[in-house]
């Protein structure tokens, strides 16, 4: 199902402040930069930002959808290059993922992911290897 050079379809996920609270509870990461405007601004951030691991989890969902299975990852790595500010609005912000298939060999496909928010790249060296 994967071919080298194939560009995988864009997947968009909406992230709201409520999602950050839910993710903090589920993950155990209660760093206040993910829920306190005061703390986030106090350390020089533009405001409350999404957990990097929530962004990565959404990337994982995108990979699962492309692979057609949710249990096929063998290697998954990202660098968080820009924060994802999440405004205190109903719609929050949107995060978009695409990927290119770089290699298919020995039953494993290697994908290079691109993740953007408000047109800015938020991840670098985002790579996933999935069993196919």
């Amino acid at each position, binding site marked *: 199902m994967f071919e080298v050079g194939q560009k995988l379809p864009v997947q968009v996920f909406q992230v709201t402040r409520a999602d950050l609270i*839910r993710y903090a509870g589920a993950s155990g990461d209660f760093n206040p930069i993910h829920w306190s405007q005061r703390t986030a601004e106090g*350390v020089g951030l533009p405001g409350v930002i999404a957990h*990097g691991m929530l962004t990565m*989890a*959404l990337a994982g969902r995108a990979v699962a959808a492309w692979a057609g299975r949710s*249990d096929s990852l063998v*290697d998954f*790595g990202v660098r968080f290059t820009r*924060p994802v500010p999440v405004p205190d609005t109903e719609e929050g912000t949107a995060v978009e993922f695409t990927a290119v298939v770089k290699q298919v060999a020995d039953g494993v496909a290697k994908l290079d992911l691109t993740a953007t928010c408000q047109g800015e790249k938020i991840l670098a060296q985002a790579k996933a290897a999935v069993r196919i």
Partner: protein
Amino acid sequence: MPLDQSFVGRVYPPHPAYQVGREKIREFADAIGASDPIHHDVEAAKALGYPDVVAPATFLTIIATAANRQIVVDPGLGVDYSRVVHGDQRFTYVRPVVAGDELVVHASIEDILSRGGHDFLTSRFDIVTTAGEPVGSVWTKLVIRGESHEEGAV
């Protein structure tokens, strides 16, 4: 003040085993919007050959974050948690985590770098079952932002 390089290579004693619960997997899957039935429905997971519901790929972060807290609050290392942002993250998987797993984390500090007023702390977490079966490894790089450097890595 830069983090103490002598902490590189430090190995932390493992916590008691983490018992992976079915409801915790469902809660985590809900929090990230992962609706695949294998995360929620035991029968769907069994149809793919798993004994119970399957955790989403980044679920290991729960266990790694708990183990990382031990490092972050180590008074000798002196990390200011309010200035911490996440730099890099990587997982390698031997198999997915499933409900009923009892997981032990072997945590260590792999690297410390100080650059441009920021500190970069890379920790490694090797996850095995209580029976010694390897499940996967997790690497977390934290960036501890310098007091007077608001630009740069986030």
